[in-house]
């Protein structure tokens, strides 16, 4: 324990939480104009906007939001590898949402109950994230217990993303969180949703050949580079310009 004032935001933690929100928001934004049904154009944009709002607050705690978003190199991003994974089909997006929003929900609940630089933000974000989790859970039910094809796709998506779930519970410096309890709550919640959706919790390894914690340490997956290149190119093409 240190005696730093509770309001001083720890940089690593702000970047971890902020980058998760920023990167997932970007991925969800890629759905615009491509969603399977008009209601989902609205819903996915809602979630993307909530996350972008969270990202802007978190990044602004430790620097200029645009400098951090647009001028950092890939290795300086601290987001989970999970959130940078491509959208894939709608099942893959929903599986990513289920895993991440459940994690974020329990994480933010703990932060909201604590006393740190993130308490206020987490208290507000918990309400948004509860909606994200609800949205993901309901789609998991519909896809898992819908048609044979949707069941198959949802099962495949949950399995494919499973390897990225281990690093969610690697402690982040500066976050006072009971990581063990977080993991237990997450597992119980996700397993419950999957069960109701006639799916089962995947049983493969929870991290790839990369050690868990890779995204948090700045090691990312191949799809992240192209994503960043697209996101940053215009901003970087006009150094010093304001928009």
């Amino acid at each position: 324990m240190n005696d730093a004032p509770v309001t001083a935001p720890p940089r690593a933690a702000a970047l971890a939480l902020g980058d998760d929100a920023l990167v997932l928001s970007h991925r969800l934004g890629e759905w615009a104009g491509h969603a399977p049904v008009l209601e989902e154009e609205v819903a996915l944009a809602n979630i993307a906007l909530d996350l972008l709002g969270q990202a802007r607050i978190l990044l602004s705690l430790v620097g200029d939001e645009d400098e951090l978003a647009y001028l950092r190199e890939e290795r300086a991003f601290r987001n989970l590898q999970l959130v940078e994974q491509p959208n894939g089909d709608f099942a893959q997006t929903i599986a990513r949402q289920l895993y991440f929003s459940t994690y974020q929900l329990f994480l933010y609940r703990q932060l909201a109950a604590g006393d740190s630089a993130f308490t206020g933000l987490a208290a507000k974000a918990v309400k948004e994230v509860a909606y994200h989790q609800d949205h993901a859970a309901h789609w998991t039910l519909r896809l898992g217990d819908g048609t044979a094809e949707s069941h198959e796709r949802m099962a495949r998506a949950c399995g494919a993303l499973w390897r990225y779930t281990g690093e969610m519970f690697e402690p982040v410096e500066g976050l006072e969180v009971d990581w063990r309890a977080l993991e237990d709550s997450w597992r119980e919640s996700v397993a419950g949703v999957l069960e109701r959706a006639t799916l089962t919790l995947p049983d493969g390894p929870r991290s790839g050949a990369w050690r868990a914690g890779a995204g948090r340490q700045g090691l990312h997956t191949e799809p992240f580079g192209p994503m960043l290149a697209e996101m940053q190119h215009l901003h970087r093409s006009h150094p010093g310009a304001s928009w």
Partner: protein
Amino acid sequence: METTAEGFEAAFDAAVAADERIEPRDWMPEAYRASLVRQIAQHAHSEIIGMQPEANWISRAPSLRRKAILMAKVQDEAGHGLYLYSAAETLGTGREELLDKLHTGRQKYSSIFNYPTLTWADVGAIGWLVDGAAITNQVPLCRCSYGPYARAMVRICKEESFHQRQGYELLLALSNGTPAQHEMAQDAVNRWWWPSLMMFGPPDDESAHSAQSMAWKIKRHSNDELRQRFVDICVPQAEALGLALPDPDLRWNEERGRHDFGAIDWAEFREVLKGNGPCNEQRITQRRRAHEEGAWVRDAAAAYATKRRAGSVPAEDGVRMMEATA
């Protein structure tokens, strides 16, 4: 029977003449219903196709603030599509049927969205000019004789005016920015100005549906009148932006108290309308693909809803479920 039908028609005519609203359960002439469905559907299609050119820039938005504004705008357009498909539904035509007509080319959307967004400044030009033209067209529709359409338009116009201001503000930042940014803004205005003027439709003497629509108070002003109004609004705004409108014939006419402007290239308009614009194929292909690729998702939602109704799934699981279009 004849007298009854005539009685209904007289009541309808009287209601329209008295500026009363026609509601879904009221009797209405079949041609009025058909004309409204056609217009509302085309409007709804324009909202959802119109998401594409701007969504094209979400992933590259140059600041997080602009990214949030743009995402929210594209989301609003999806919402507008939803309101309008619902308004059409009150006339007995479902969303699925209308989407099918869009996807098979039997119904159109606004031709403006067949132009490409080539730079970031195009996002601003669309907001300022395209949303601006849409508002000029649509504000009178808030007084349209058909109630559900008029009410949808009140809501939509409020949001469109946000979009217009945001677009203007985006262009202003570019115009006052670096030389490269200023040039980007001018280039976008050069490309979007004339297509925006075409958004008001063909000149009055060539407009096929205008006269009847005006009689029914579906439409309130002629194409040329609205176009003139739009030009008069834009000229001082362009000056304030520090950007030129690409029309050497544009000048104030003291006598008319309005601006004169150059001849519109109606040959281009007709070509784009026919399907030969720069993006017609691309837009409809993307729309069709999104719909086809989403078919299994809609099927799953429908199958799940059926199971839930049949009681094989606990009801609570579906309580807040959104009805997906099957």
